[in-house]
């Protein structure tokens, strides 16, 4: 049968007003339901008629999913809080700046006004074969088109590829890993809280999803503990265009430095693999070392050990090496006078 894109299909729209109702609806509909947050990822899928859910559960009417609240140990951000609110929130700007910086570099102002933090971390891969509806591994097929002799893979994975070479495109995900954030998930059995890095999965675990949510489950909030409040942060995203572009790579780090020595550190990169990578080996290697360029250089080299380039993405290896170096050793800034 012929294929047509760019026309939104018909579906039943359900608009619950509470988390309990939303979870129940998702439970009832199972695999037929599509969870709609800000829509910035969903509408592409729906308009292209590649995903044709029977039911769309729109979370925008659930007040308890929105807003940023202080907790006994840090803050809690509702999953439906917009990226713009995250960028502008005074506590996030003051104490968890790496998150504000990463959120500010997502897409464009219009998309940040509509897109949510929960949506940003739960978005699907942007591999151009997968997004165009090619029947690849990630779409339950049995081939990776990007990893073929003539496949185009400039924006694909250099690490942990397993049949599929797509990458996770989220900018906020590595920042949340650096902050040791906790993801709150509502299931039929109640609430489950997991570490940020455990929210994301690679193709070795699940080749059809970038995250752990199962049908009937809902990400409700992201908690940021105070352990890293006010730490020394670094975030950098490299993209082709200065706005409205996914990362070629990004890096986020949080360091506690005392007398020039790295006491504690968390660091993550995204755009290198199907999940944002927490670089534990790097963390272990630099802990106790001087927070300087030499340590950064060592860390950069360590970070890309085992990286395997595809035909068109070898640049990601020096790029990741340099971003990790800068996250730890800092950037040698220009001192132009004009």
């Amino acid at each position, binding site marked *: 049968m012929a294929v047509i894109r*760019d*026309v939104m299909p018909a579906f039943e729209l359900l608009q619950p007003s509470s988390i309990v109702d939303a979870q129940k609806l998702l439970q009832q509909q199972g695999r037929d339901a599509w969870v709609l947050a800000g829509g910035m990822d969903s509408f592409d899928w729906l308009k292209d008629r590649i995903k044709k859910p029977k039911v769309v559960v729109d979370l925008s009417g659930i007040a308890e999913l929105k807003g940023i609240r202080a907790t006994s140990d840090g803050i809690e951000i509702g999953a439906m809080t917009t990226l713009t609110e995250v960028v502008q929130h005074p506590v996030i700007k003051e104490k968890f700046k790496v998150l504000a910086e990463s959120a*500010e570099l997502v897409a464009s102002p219009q998309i940040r006004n509509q897109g949510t933090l929960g949506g940003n971390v739960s978005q699907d891969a942007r591999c151009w074969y997968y997004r165009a509806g090619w029947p690849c591994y990630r779409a339950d097929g049995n081939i990776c088109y990007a990893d073929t002799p003539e496949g185009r893979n400039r924006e694909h994975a250099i690490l942990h590829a397993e049949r599929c070479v797509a990458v996770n495109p989220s900018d906020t995900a590595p920042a949340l890993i650096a902050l040791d954030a906790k993801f709150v998930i509502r299931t039929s059995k109640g609430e489950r809280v997991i570490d940020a890095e455990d929210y994301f999965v690679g193709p070795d675990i699940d080749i059809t999803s970038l995250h752990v949510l199962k049908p009937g489950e809902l990400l409700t909030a992201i908690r940021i503990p105070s352990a890293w409040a006010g730490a020394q942060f670094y975030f950098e995203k490299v993209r082709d265009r200065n706005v409205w572009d996914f990362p070629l790579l990004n890096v986020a780090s949080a360091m506690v430095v005392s007398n020039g020595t790295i006491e504690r550190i968390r660091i993550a990169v995204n755009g290198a693999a199907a999940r944002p990578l927490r670089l534990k080996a790097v963390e272990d290697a630099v802990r106790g070392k001087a927070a300087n360029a030499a340590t950064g250089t060592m860390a950069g080299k360590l970070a890309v050990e085992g990286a395997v380039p595809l035909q068109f993405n070898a640049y990601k290896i020096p*790029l990741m090496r340099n971003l990790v170096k800068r996250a730890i050793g800092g*950037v040698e800034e220009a001192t132009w006078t004009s």
Partner: protein
Amino acid sequence: MSEESVKKESQPAKAPERVYGVGHKLIGKDYPTPDLYAKVTGLAKYAEDYHADGMLFCKLLLSPLPHARVKHIDTRAALAMPGVKAILMADELPPPADSLTDNGTVIKANLKSERALTMEPLYQGEPILAVAAVDELTAAEAIEQIRIDFEPLPFVIDPLETLRPGGPNPRLEGNIWVQAPAPSAAPGAPPPNPPPPTIGELKWTKEDFANAKEGQLPMGKVPGEWSYGDLDPGFKNAALVLDETFVTPDTSHQTLETRTAMAYWQNGKVHVFTGTQSTAQTVPAIARWLNIDPSNVVLISEYTGGGFGSKITGGVTLVIPALLSKKVNAPVMMRISREEETFIGRARPSLMGRMKVGFSKEGRVIALDMFVISNNGPYDANGDVPSSGRIVSLLYQCEAMRWRGATILTNTPPRSAQSSPGGMQGIAIMEPIIAKAARKLGLDQVAIRRINCPEGKAPVGPVMKSDGKRPHATSAFLKEALDRGAEQFKWNERVARTPKRSGTKVRGVGVSLSCYVGGSIGFDGLLVITPEGRVRFQSGIGNLGTEAVMDVHRAGAEVLGVPWEKCDITWGDTAKNFPYTCVSGGSQTTHAMTRAAYATAMDAKKKLQEIAAKSLGGKPENYEVANERVFRKGGGAGMTLGQAAAKAIQLGGVYDGHEPSADLNKLTKASMAALAGQGLIAAAKDNYPRDGQTYSYVASFAEVEVDVETGKYYIVDFLAYADVGSVIHPRALGGQVLGRSVLGMGHTLGQKWVYDPHYGAMLSTRFYQNKPPTILDVPVNMQWAALDIPDPETPVGARGVGEPPVGGGCASILNALSDALGDEIFRRAPVNADTILTSLEAGRPMQHPLMAHI
């Protein structure tokens, strides 16, 4: 870097205030255009905003394969769906019509040209059929119920692949167009037109491919060739000879308004609502596509959301709603989605170029051997390949030059002219070589361009058979633009500044010459002076965003001495009677139509003087026209324009439009006949002489900052200094100079196609994948200026501007990058972090220039 810090970094000094149009009241002055309010408030109606009673919607079924034959189509399930009204297929299209030239000769239709629908798709995304239904959702669901069986056919995406011995052909007959010469003329008859081109096959030899070194474009036999001067002594005596290969990207036009069209039939006439660059000239195109008489076509196109060459006379797909409308006897709207526009919306062809250039030690280009091939897509040959040679010959005034080229067909979407077709690519291929030569010869980048750039009646292209001479430009003041631009940009200060590298950042400055054609001649103007004393300009120009549709008439109002507030402009609906007007393509409108407006205003002035003499006595030359009156010179009897218009109606004949001048085009005469009796009607053909071909020029300056650890770069500063003749409307001119510079920058900054060559499928179908530049990719405070020196070969002095800035926008950034990073980084555009980082790592260019679409 956050968006905020991008803005902060690029805040150069404010440009000096320029005063344009000295000595004029309207020419060279800013004014609010009559369409401004509607545009900024959203009241403006684009094609999609029109609705008609009982309107249906249609959707297209696009080919999933790059080349195939449709074996069988089963539409029964689709037609059985409630709400589905009709399906249109290729065999229901009218046969392609021949066209008639103004001198009565016939141009035979090319039966191998593109049509709106096909049973042998030649590219992925080519429309096969259309479904009309009560709404778009129904139409889309119906398309999903259609079963099509295809027979896949050989296909090719890369022009070099089809040129290889035994390489696949994109069409069953071959891979190039072959043009037979025109037959000789019968005695006393106008010369006949050449027959339609046929498709032939061009293959290069194994040796041709083997002779090219790594990264070099192979050079086999090509059908196009011209030369002038003697290359051998040039190369022999050259202080420096460079032989470089460079490849430019395929770039979609990506107009914000897609080629949406709505149509219905009324009393035998088809009414078409669509965006087009040209209003009057789209009528004959629609008539030809529908094979009906132009008098049965009404086109409504008040606003067009961008064209850049992709909608010179609308798009051929507009016949789909027109034919469906006829079939179901109801209005049909065809909204083109972004996905569809990506395939059918036209694109600039990539050029693969190789240039061998000999320089004197002073940097003069003494010999140039240029070889280019283009990736044309499957249909009509575009002029980019020949145009690239002409523009390079003009812009660098090469002492001896050979140009060779071929337009190669492939199974990729159809190309069309895109702002500076061929010029942009020729400049992008040549400029990095000039920059490299300057570095090797120890010359300043502005100085080397200064000694090569055209001046005055500069020669262009090869010797013409007709007169044995090389044609020349009407004028060129590019040296002045280069000098003034260098001064305003503080070129010398920027070059002298040290260090070039600080921390991980390197800065580089680049300059580029740029030019393109800037005007045609011989069109008509038409205006009405009403008994109420208002002047109504009948504007057949398209409202494509340049404001030429309004601006050119300021030249007419200035001649008549009428305040602009007393002028009205009729535009956007061909039922409202327009004169024979140029197409708005090739940057010709401002030049062509200010000439026509000037001629028409002179005709009005003459008629006013004659009416005054008839009414008040004396001779016409005793009267002058000013201050909304025609009156005796030195004071005395006179009449208002309104009174003169009333008198014109009384007099009839030549004065109120009943007797048109014989040299007017038949379209103008028909419009005059419809307007006759409404007032004083003036119409005139532009018969002014012109010595030379009209071109406009730009000197472009840029500074970039590159982070060598990430490969990311920012354009820190940009200036375009234009030589476009007299300035008509500064604000619109600035919009064109900078807007088209940005169009050019996109080719360096990342705009491209990504194709999977194994499947012949485009992967970059969305903006975030094909990456047109955004407003944050260019400096916040870009600058422009214009010389405002009138062109001596046109009465108003104005030349066109749309296309000339494009090549400079692209090449000034390329040159700034090589100034920052050296000559061993890139060999094709766009240039991004991947290219920069891998080449910096390896210390040599790491991307094969001939492997595109990645």
